[in-house]
């Protein structure tokens, strides 16, 4: 776990707690693709007894934990180029078959990072502006193809700018694709083109979440108070 994953913060969830909260919602029986970074952390928090199969873009279903250093095989890496192992029931296939799974709607859930999300579900997560080197990887395929796209992200940027915005200013990854957002401040669903607050982090009020959201946030419904593990 990185320093960033564990460092305390004034209010709201740590990165690990955000991953934990998202993991609670991963349904039993799901085929899941986890983005690089915080989304990956979710795998370790899936509740006991739920069957989940992890997909990696480079042609793996059913990969598991990283190997011991002496067991590293550089031909068994995940989409983040990190060595992995295979769980019982795993399978290997080529890249076109791998993205047939994604594009064909066979992946139940893609849990991804985000730069900006709009209340219509638009997502920008591949490029912060038009400078530098455009690198997209499998992000556009995942958001277009997965049955559900959830994002896990800080609620605001490092400089305090909202990431949940009226309309994305960064280049889009996909249009009308995101349905849920897990942030350090809470859980926001997208319903009928609006952000709807479903849960808040300890020490955070719904009003505070609304204030840090760059578009209307509906806080009128039932709102869970997140109780993360210690």
């Amino acid at each position, binding site marked *: 776990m990185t320093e960033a994953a564990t460092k305390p913060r004034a209010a709201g969830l740590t990165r690990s707690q955000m991953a934990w909260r998202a993991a609670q919602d991963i349904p039993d*029986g*799901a*085929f899941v693709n986890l983005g690089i970074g915080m989304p990956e952390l979710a*795998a*370790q928090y*899936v509740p006991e007894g739920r*069957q*989940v*199969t*992890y*997909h990696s873009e480079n042609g793996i*279903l*059913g*990969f*598991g*934990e*990283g190997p011991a250093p002496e067991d590293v095989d550089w031909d068994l890496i995940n989409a983040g180029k990190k060595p992995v192992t*295979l*769980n*019982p*029931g*795993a*399978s*290997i*296939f080529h890249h076109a*078959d791998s*993205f*047939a*799974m*994604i*594009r*064909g*709607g*066979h*992946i139940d859930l893609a849990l991804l990072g985000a730069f900006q999300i709009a209340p219509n579900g638009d997502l920008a997560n591949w490029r912060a502006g038009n400078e530098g080197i455009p690198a997209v990887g499998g992000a556009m395929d995942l958001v*277009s*193809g997965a049955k559900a796209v959830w994002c896990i992200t800080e609620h605001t940027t490092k400089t305090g700018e909202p990431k949940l915005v009226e309309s994305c200013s960064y280049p889009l990854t996909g249009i009308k694709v995101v349905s849920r957002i897990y942030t350090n401040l809470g859980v926001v669903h997208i319903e009928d083109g609006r952000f709807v607050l479903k849960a808040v982090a300890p020490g955070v009020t719904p009003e505070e979440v609304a204030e840090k959201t760059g578009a209307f946030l509906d806080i009128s419904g039932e709102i869970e108070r997140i109780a993360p593990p210690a």
Partner: protein
Amino acid sequence: MTKAMGVTRPVMTAEEALADVKDGATVLIGGFGGSGNPVELIHALIDQGARELTVVNNNAGNGEVGLAALIREGRVAKVICSFPRSAASHHFNEAYLNGRIELETVPQGTLAERIRAGGSGIPAFYTRTSVGTPLAEGKPVATFDGRDYVQERAITGDLALVKASRADRCGNLQFHLAMRNFGPIMCMAATCAVVQADEILEPGEMDPEQVVTPGIFVNRLVHVPGAVQEQVLFEQGARYP
């Protein structure tokens, strides 16, 4: 990362696996001639009773068993296939010539690719196959690099009936020799892929490199040890039911 094995698929009886098939369903049925023909599953579909089915298969049945029997029982409204004629396709022939069944004849490679496209999230693609022939009539034509191509649309199914030789409980499949044919792509293209397998293994017993159809494409497993061959039944003069 959890160490538990991944998602498993239920092992059911054929009756259970097909209990929810609805009238009017599109059913992708694996097999090329008799090879890979899921006879037991087709017979269970006959027992189940759904009507007005659209069937996608390379052929249109043979003799008095399997798909031929499903047609004979009046349960098929439409067949999408490449080659309906065979030595004993008399039930299809008669139904077709008497206007009781609709036929969409599709070139075999276009049929396979349309099914693969259906499973791969590709709504349409272009192929040179059938350009300038009656089977291209009514389809959009586009020119790429100076040559004409026909636009073909994806095929998906509500249900696939597929025969495999081995499955593990995660739904990973292997096929004996040319039994494979349409099985893998039909599993991809169906909302519910039901697979009959001669042998059912525990997760971990199948080499991940040798999985032909990953379990993500398979929804329900039916254990059918010693499955019959349509061709053998035909030669025996068998009839179902």
